[in-house]
């Protein structure tokens, strides 16, 4: 059996105490990304349940899987959800959604909900893109920059390295910090070239930890460059899968000289949260 080094644990959570049947509004947000998909259900503006899953080969299937995982054990059927907003790369192909809203707007809204109204700058490090978003105290976007052309700094880029060095992706961050001293970053931005560079480094005696450190360092530096294009205003927070890679986040925060507000329960679900909040707004508007 070949190990799939890119695998991370899919999960779901539901509120054990709330009774959704008593809710005035029951809405859903589904974020279908190129690498991961999340679903979140909100009752009366509060989180009821959510899931975080790996995107499959089709957007509709991925949306369904994410939603089913979130709803499992809750007794909620898809038809019970009064309004669904779809977001993410696959947003136009989510069959159960009533409206599609971009992941930019949804991330800003979601981060504002999870991190509070003081959040002004959001860095989203996703599976196949990097986003820099500025928002106001209500979570409305005031500036954004999205780079989905190049794998450098994205989850896919990290997967390539994890695969090369045969290490589960969830261990990469910790390993990269376990080095006697910080090595120079890999010189290539391009993941393909960085991969060749890494092979050369290993041959010349570098340990896996050192190679990860060099790669995470280069990725952090790239992300900082992207953010500097739009500027960093406090408070700052990070969303997306790579927000869980301490090797990248610790280095980029050090270079930026800022702290990041942690987002609970999961920084990877900001998009789905934002989508659910938009769903609630639209539902209430339609009821007027």
């Amino acid at each position: 059996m070949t190990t799939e080094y890119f695998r991370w644990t899919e999960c779901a959570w539901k509120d054990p105490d709330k009774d959704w049947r008593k809710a005035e509004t029951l809405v859903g947000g589904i974020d279908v990304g190129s690498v991961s998909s999340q679903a979140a259900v909100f009752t009366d503006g509060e989180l009821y349940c959510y899931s975080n899953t790996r995107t499959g080969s089709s957007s509709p299937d991925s949306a369904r899987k994410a939603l089913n995982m979130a709803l499992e054990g809750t007794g909620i059927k898809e038809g019970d959800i009064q309004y669904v907003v779809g977001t993410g790369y696959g947003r136009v192909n989510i069959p159960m959604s009533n409206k599609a809203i971009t992941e930019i707007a949804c991330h800003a809204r979601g981060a504002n909900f999870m991190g509070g109204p003081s959040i002004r700058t959001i860095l989203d490090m996703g599976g196949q893109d990097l986003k820099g978003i500025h928002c106001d105290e209500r979570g409305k976007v005031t500036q954004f920059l999205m780079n989905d052309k190049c794998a450098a700094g994205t989850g896919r880029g990290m997967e390539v390295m994890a695969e090369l060095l045969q290490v589960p992706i969830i261990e990469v961050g910790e390993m990269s910090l376990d080095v006697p001293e910080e090595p120079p970053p890999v010189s290539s931005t391009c993941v393909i070239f960085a991969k060749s560079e890494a092979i050369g480094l290993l041959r010349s005696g570098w340990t896996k930890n050192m190679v990860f450190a060099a790669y995470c360092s280069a990725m952090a530096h790239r992300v900082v460059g992207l953010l500097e294009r739009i500027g960093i205003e406090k408070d700052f927070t990070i969303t997306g899968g790579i927000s869980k890679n301490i090797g990248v986040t610790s280095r980029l925060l050090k270079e930026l000289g800022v702290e990041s507000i942690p987002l609970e329960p999961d920084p990877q679900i900001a998009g789905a949260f934002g989508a659910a909040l938009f769903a609630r707004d639209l539902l209430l508007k339609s009821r007027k």
Partner: protein
Amino acid sequence: MPGYIANYGYTDGSGDYYIVVDTDKCDGCGKCVEACAQGVLEVITDDYDDLVASVSAEHHKNLKYVCAPCKPVSGPRDLKCEMACPSGAITHSW
């Protein structure tokens, strides 16, 4: 309702290539869309229900190449979209 600044484009190993639209200044008039022979731009209804100029999905990852005709290596920059916009809402970062 205040707008936002949208940076469409990318950074790769070879550089930064962004078309920047200031939606505070953009009223969705579409003159930039007409001016661009490459079909890079389009007018969309955004998440906040405003009509604004945007870079089309098929082009935002190819800006360096698709905008190249207006930016020859030697010769004057002839950015038709920037010149067509009456309010200076659209600029190129390179």
